[in-house]
C-alpha cells in the first residue's frame, strides 16, 4: 500500500512542475514548447497509471477466474 501512495505523490509532483514549466514557457511566448512539455508529462503519467491499472486487472482476473 505504501508504494501506491508514493506513486500518487509522484504524479502530483510531475503535475505541479509541468504546470509551472507550461506557465513560464507560455509567458515568454514559446507556446509550442509549452505544449510539448505538457504532452510529454501527460504521456509519462498515462504510462504510469496504465501499468497500475494493468496490475488491478491482473488481480481481478486472479480473484474471479482462479488463475495465476
Amino acid at each position, binding site marked *: 500500500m505504501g508504494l501506491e501512495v508514493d506513486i500518487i505523490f*509522484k504524479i502530483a*509532483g*510531475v503535475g505541479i*512542475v509541468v504546470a*509551472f*514549466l507550461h506557465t*513560464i514557457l507560455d*509567458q*515568454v511566448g514559446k507556446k509550442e514548447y509549452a505544449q510539448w512539455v505538457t504532452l510529454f508529462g501527460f504521456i509519462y503519467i498515462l504510462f504510469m497509471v496504465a501499468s497500475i491499472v494493468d496490475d488491478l486487472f491482473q488481480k481481478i482476473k486472479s480473484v474471479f477466474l482462479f488463475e495465476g
Partner: protein
Amino acid sequence: MIKIIGAILIVFATTWTGFEMAKQLTERSRQLRDLKTALQSLEAEIMYGHTPLHEAARKLADQLSDPLQSFFATFAKKLIETETIVRDAWEESLKEIWGKTALKKNEFEIMKQFGETLGRHDRVSQQKQILLTLTHLEREERDARDKQQKYEKMMKSIGFLSGLLLIILLM
C-alpha cells in the same frame, strides 16, 4: 540518504546551468555596450587625438574591461611586434578572444568588416566607417537587450524546474 544527496546535486547542477545561460545573455548586452564605447573612444582618438593606431589600441586596452581589454592589447601587440597589415592583425586578435566573449556571429561579422576598413582611408571616411559600425552595433544591442529581458528569468526558472522534474522522474 545517498538518494537525497544525489537529488540535491542534480538540482544544484541544473540551477547552475540555468544561471550560466542567463549570465550569457546579460554578458552579451554588457559587452556590446563596452564595444560601442570602445569604438567611440577610437573615433575620438583618430579624429581629435591624431593618435597612431597601435597607440590608440593600447590606450583603449587601458580604459576597457576584460574581454575587450585583451582584444585591444593583442591588437596593439600584433601591430607593434609583427610584420603585418592592420586587417590581418585585427582579424587574428578578434579570432583569438572570440571564445571568451558572449557575443554572436553577427557581431563577429560586423567587427570583421570594420577591421577591413580600418587604416585604409582618410580620417573623415574612417569616421564614417566607425559611425556605420556603431549603427550596426546599436541594432545588435537592442536585439540583445530584448532577448535578455525576455529570456533571462525564463532560463533561471527552467533550470531549477527541470532539475526538480528530473528528480521526481528518477525517484
